């Protein structure tokens, strides 16, 4: 049974981390990161060709995380595989002992390192959530019974601060109806707005794990604001980091404050330290979550 599911069902405030599989076959850096984060996490997300750039598959890398004794959250995007391959990989996940899956649309290939690739998007994330639910119930997406069902703990992405919220909310509710049990969200910027909207999703029956991003430098903030659509760092937060004597220290303080404010308001936090695992540990410890 998924420890993440157990903890969420027991009402524990969960912590999830994230690792990216390598661009190549050397898993050592990823596993070193797993080793550093695991003592503080209920589960660790393993990204799926993150940023539409080539990496080891989340399936293989998730199994590697499991093999070192940690609990992975397999990520599955709809970008690189059609409905046959997606179902095949979800079945494979179960045979490999993987239980948690986060189902997302995926960045467009033109944003990544293979901009000439064909984006598949045969089915979208809502549809794939329904497919995963079906596999748990013992049927493939044609409704044909399968020999041995999956036991997936199914999650989806949500963006509680998205505007217009009425459209984003409706989409998130649609994902719950399709089978999403938990959400992992885009990074929190305005805790009050975030909490208000996340509460709506929790009232609809989903667990909400809030994304907390370590805004570790002015360069990272510029990158987010200029390159990543769907996430804008507000002026006040940007200035706070930019004006700090030590931006990294300030970012750790900010992330710690966010985690403290979110505790009690949502079901957990997903901390994204952008490669700085020591900062991850300091945020968790600083927020008193150890």
């Amino acid at each position, binding site marked *: 049974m998924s420890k993440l599911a157990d903890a969420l069902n027991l009402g524990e405030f969960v912590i999830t981390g994230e690792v990216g599989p390598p661009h190549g076959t050397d898993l050592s850096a990823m596993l070193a990161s797993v080793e550093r984060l695991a003592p503080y996490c209920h589960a660790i997300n393993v990204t799926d060709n993150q940023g539409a750039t080539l990496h080891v598959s989340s399936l293989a890398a998730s199994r590697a995380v499991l093999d070192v004794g940690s609990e992975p959250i397999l990520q599955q995007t709809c970008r690189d595989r059609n409905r046959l391959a997606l179902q095949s990989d979800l079945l494979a996940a179960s045979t490999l002992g993987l239980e948690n899956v986060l189902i997302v649309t995926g960045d467009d290939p033109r944003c990544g390192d293979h901009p000439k690739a064909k984006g598949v*998007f045969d089915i979208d994330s809502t*549809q794939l959530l329904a497919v995963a639910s079906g596999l748990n119930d013992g049927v493939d997406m044609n409704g044909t019974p399968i020999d041995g069902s999956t036991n997936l703990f199914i999650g989806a992405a949500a963006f509680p601060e998205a505007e217009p919220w009425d459209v984003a909310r409706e989409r998130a509710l649609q994902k719950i109806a399709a089978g999403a049990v938990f959400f992992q969200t885009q990074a929190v910027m305005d805790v009050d707005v975030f909490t208000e909207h996340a509460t709506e999703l929790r009232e609809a029956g989903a667990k909400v794990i809030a994304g907390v991003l370590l805004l570790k430098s002015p360069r990272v903030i510029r990158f987010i604001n200029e390159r990543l659509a*769907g996430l804008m760092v507000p002026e006040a937060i940007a200035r706070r980091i930019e004006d700090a004597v030590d931006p990294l220290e300030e970012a750790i303080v900010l992330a710690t404050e966010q985690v403290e404010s979110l505790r009690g308001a949502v079901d957990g936090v997903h901390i994204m330290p952008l490669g700085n695992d020591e900062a991850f540990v300091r945020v968790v410890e600083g927020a008193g979550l150890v």
Partner: protein
Amino acid sequence: MIITKPRDWARIRANLESISARRVFLVGCGQCATVAKTGGERELIEAAARLEEDGYAVTGWAVGEVACHLGGTKLEARKRVGEIEAADALVVLSCGAGVQTVADSVDKPVFPGLESAFLGNVIRAGIFEERCQTCGECVLDLSAGICPVTTCPKGLLNGPCGGMWDGKCEVLADRECTHVRIRRRLAKQGRPVPGAVPPKDYSAKLKPGALDLREKARGHA
């Protein structure tokens, strides 16, 4: 209409050089490529001049009514049989459908002179946008007359994706998100928001598409 764009001139020259062609007959299209200003009379005259500058002889050129119509193109080829016979190759300034029709109509090497881009709406003269993928399974009834298959860069039936910000598209950040537009138009018209749209049936668009109305009339379909 089919929107076409000019093809890299070096590729056209390389195609001609690959068979040591020196004499060229040019074919355009009186429909789409004329409207797209890529394969009408004016563009053929320009292409002929450019070929001559590059040392080729142009034996003639023709803009038929519509290049992709097999009967019409064969008729056009018969009218120009002397000029076509005198050529080593034909270069066709039309979409790929027209190029293939010409290739089926003459017994000479035929090369594409344009790149076929998309099935486009004419927004204003010279401004074209893709609105339909000819997917064979229309969802416009569910989406307030705005096609998500085409105008969402990811082609999501259910959206928006997580990249939507301030109502804008993640991939094409200067555009309004298709799914926000759909919701807004449905609301404005007082129409209910449909539930999750099920996966698309891509078998409705298997290649190669074919339709025979005569067969239907004979009662075979």
